[in-house]
């Protein structure tokens, strides 16, 4: 779950990481009120889960409460990179003597946390040359020691009070990274302001699979209605921009189905993985929801392991009988466990079934108006 900046900063604050004085507002009047309380120039920051917010005009500065109210009025209700702005964070403007970068991620290669630091904060870390980035893996059995951070700051070329402050922030950030089940956090910039360090911006992504032990973390996921309903079925769904609705089993196989469609000049309208052993009712419900997205064609690709072909066929038949799909054509590829029973069910229902993914993808692409002739050399099609 990606948290909004103001939520990330609330977490930082709980762990004693200094943040600018400020509050979140959802109306221009409230924003002006916060600026009045702060009694000094403020920054008004759109709360959206998008990168490049500053460049897109999502951060404005105001010298007084009236200007703050006006800036908030402009931002609230607008969109930043297609995302609606429902809240703004009103914060004191910091005096900036320097900008650092500090982040912690889960690193698949070292199978643990990786601290990332740079003396060149304030820009996207992707734009910082590799030689200016320090990476320090952490052994979770011991945690992050201050001495490790001293080694990091020494390599960053910072010393004195700033280096000591940096160590304190890093140790706190590591502690919250572990305790709050964080998979990515970033303080950029970590502003040097006089003798202090302040987290001027913050990113925090928590692990959805650990949500059961953090009931207090709010759901910030911005889903469309159908995405929400399919996700609630416990299925894995991602809306895409093509015209072929896909239902397949297994993440890898679903991606492969999309890839093959694209080869035939058609594009998937969604990624829908019904996983292993999804029951018939769920598949029927998922197909009903897919039909509502108005695809040119629906393609079911199942290699049954745990998933039984007869259950998939029954779901396809019932959906077709109930007229849920209307005149949307249905293409089915079905192999694996109980394949014969499944084919028999489809035969009786008058739904043709392919055994090769190649043939099914080609037919689906054709129905969607794809450039099937341009398929090129497909090699051995067994």
């Amino acid at each position, binding site marked *: 779950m990606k948290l909004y900046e103001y939520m990330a900063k609330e977490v930082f604050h709980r762990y004693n990481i200094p943040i600018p004085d400020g509050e979140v507002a959802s109306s221009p009047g409230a924003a002006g009120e916060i600026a009045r309380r702060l009694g000094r120039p403020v920054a008004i920051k759109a709360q959206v889960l998008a990168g490049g917010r500053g460049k897109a005009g999502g951060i404005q500065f105001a010298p007084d409460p009236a200007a703050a109210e006006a800036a908030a009025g402009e931002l609230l209700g607008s969109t930043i990179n297609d995302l609606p702005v429902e809240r703004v964070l009103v914060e004191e403007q910091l005096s900036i003597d320097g900008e650092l970068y500090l982040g912690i991620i*889960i690193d698949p290669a070292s199978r643990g946390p990786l601290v990332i630091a740079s003396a060149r904060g304030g820009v996207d870390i992707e734009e910082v040359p590799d030689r200016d980035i320090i990476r320090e893996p952490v052994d979770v059995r011991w945690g992050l020691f201050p001495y490790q951070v001293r080694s990091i700051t020494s390599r960053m070329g910072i010393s004195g009070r700033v280096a000591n402050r940096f160590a304190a922030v890093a140790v706190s950030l590591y502690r919250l990274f572990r305790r709050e089940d964080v*998979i990515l956090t970033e303080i950029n910039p970590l502003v040097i302001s006089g003798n202090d360090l302040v987290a001027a911006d913050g990113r925090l992504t928590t692990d959805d*699979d650990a949500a059961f032990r953090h009931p207090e973390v709010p759901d910030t996921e911005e889903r469309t209605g159908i995405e929400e309903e399919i996700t609630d079925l416990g299925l894995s769904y991602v809306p895409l921009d093509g015209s072929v609705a896909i239902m397949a*089993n297994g993440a890898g196989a679903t991606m492969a189905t999309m890839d093959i469609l694209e080869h035939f000049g058609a594009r998937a309208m969604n990624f829908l993985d019904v996983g292993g052993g999804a029951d018939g009712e769920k598949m029927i419900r998922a197909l009903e929801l897919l039909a509502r997205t108005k695809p040119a064609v629906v393609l079911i690709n199942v290699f049954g392991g745990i998933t039984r072909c007869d259950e998939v066929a029954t779901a396809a038949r019932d959906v077709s009988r109930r007229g849920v799909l209307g005149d949307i054509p249905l293409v089915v590829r079905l192999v694996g466990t109980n394949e014969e029973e499944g084919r028999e069910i489809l035969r009786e229902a008058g739904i043709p079934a392919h055994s090769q993914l190649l043939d099914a993808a080609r037919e689906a692409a054709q129905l969607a108006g794809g450039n099937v002739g341009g398929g090129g050399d497909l090699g*051995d099609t067994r």
Partner: protein
Amino acid sequence: MAILVNEKTKVMVQGITGRQGAFHAARMAGYGTRVVAGTSPGRGGSEVEGIPVYDTVEDTVTKHGANVSAIMVPAPFVKDAAFEAIAAGIGLLVIISEHVPVHDAVDIMAYAADGGARVLGPNTFGIIAPGQCKVGIMPGGIYRRGPVGLVSRSGTLSYEIAGALGEAELGISTAAGMGGDMVVGLSFVDLLRAFERDEETECVVLVGEIGGAAEEEAAEFIKTMDKPVVAYVAGRSAPPGRRMGHAGAIVERGRGTYEAKRAALEEGGALVADFPWEVPGLIASCSRD
């Protein structure tokens, strides 16, 4: 021979009285796997499909000599189950459960390194040495025994390729799933190294997907291998920034793309298939060389 498991392997199932645990324990035993015991805290003394159930993993080790555990408990309990298995001296943990918190996986891998245990998963379909031993949820019937080693991040896609190999009368020495999560135990490199040493294996098929850098690391290792490697990578058409089902399958900030993985694998000397059904043909072409 095969890698990691064989006909002598003694498997125990953690969570054997659960719906998935009971179903798959029976299917593994039906395949001919020596499923010697299972655990379910509080249910010790009972039986599932004729398999004895204990309260602790330790009992399955001391009474039956179990050396591999298939973990099929609900995600919140996986960390405890895995630590128990490692503490009891189980040599290989096969963590089938999905949605394990990533910090739990990190802790499991650290403790496994201390305890000298190896881990497949979490979120793996398991491992199968056709005709010898099946530890996992894969459909046993599609695998034919033979000289091809198969390692995959994805379950169904590996079934697709195992099925295509079978139709081309190509058999498999061992098929192993790494798991689709961000943090998993054995890596492509660990499994490729095992296949390189395995006498029964003549060539290896690597099934990868977008996200992370596991395929790129594998490509570096492939440069040092004598046995040929054929690869297939899923997710060429996936948009960046979206997690495609697996926690690890996401292109973020230009990293983990199909193009980068394909280029690295080709540079490492692997033959890369455009489609799953091309894999058998590419294997035939490298064994002719």
